[in-house]
C-alpha cells in the first residue's frame, strides 16, 4: 500500500463515519450516581456461605450425615476432646 492509498482510505473513512459530538447530549452524572446506589452491598463470605440459597442447595443426605454426627457427639460427649485433637 502506498502513502496515497492510506490517504485515500482515511478520506473515505472520514466521509463514511459521522462526526462524534464531544459533548454528551444529557448530564450523565446523575444516572451514574443512581447506578452506583443500585449496586448491592458486598456480602461477607459467612453471609454467602450460610445464605438461604446455599443452604437450600445442600442435599438431604448431607443433612442426614450432619445429624448423625451431632447425635453421635450427644450420645458420647466424652469423645469431644479426641475429636478436637484430630481437627
Amino acid at each position: 500500500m502506498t502513502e496515497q492509498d492510506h490517504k485515500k482510505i482515511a478520506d473515505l473513512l472520514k466521509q463514511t463515519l459521522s462526526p462524534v459530538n464531544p459533548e454528551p447530549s444529557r448530564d450523565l452524572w446523575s444516572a451514574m450516581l443512581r447506578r452506583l446506589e443500585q449496586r448491592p452491598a458486598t456480602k461477607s463470605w459467612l453471609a454467602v456461605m450460610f445464605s438461604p440459597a446455599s443452604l437450600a442447595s445442600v442435599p438431604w443426605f448431607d443433612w442426614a450425615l450432619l445429624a448423625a454426627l451431632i447425635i453421635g457427639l450427644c450420645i458420647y460427649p466424652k469423645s469431644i476432646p479426641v475429636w478436637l485433637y484430630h481437627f
Partner: protein
Amino acid sequence: MNTHPYLRAYMAGSAVPTMMLVVVLSGFLIARYTFQIPIPIERAIVFPMALVPNIFGLWNIFYLWLRPRRHLPIGFHGALLPFILAPLGFGLATVSGFLAATSGGLVWFHELVVPYGFLALGFSFALIAYYLVWKYIVGFFNGVLGIA
C-alpha cells in the same frame, strides 16, 4: 501471568483448621479446667496446631494437581485424609505420652477410655466429618480464591 494456583490452594486448605484452632484450644481449656480432664495442652496442641493445617493445605494442593488427571469430588478427596491423619495423630499422641493402648481399649489423656469396638465407629464419623468439611467449607474457600 503466573497466578500461583498452588499457593491459593494451600491457603484455602489450611484456612479451615487454622480457624478451628481457636475452637480446639477453647475445648481443651474447658475440658482441662472445667471438667478436670488432665489434657497436657502444651503437647496435645502440637498436632492440631502445627501438622493438621499444613496437611490440609498440602492435601488441597494435591487435589488441585490431581484434578486434570483423575478427578475426584472434593468431598471424597477430603474423606480420604483421615486415613493419613488418624495414624499420624495416634502415633504422635502415643509418643507424647497421652495415648495408651490397654486391654480395655485406647486410653486418651490418662482418663478417656475408648473401647476398641468404638474405633471403627469413630473412624467412620471422622470420614463423615471430613467429607462435609471438605465439600462445603474447603470447597467454598476454593471457590472464593478462584480455584474451584
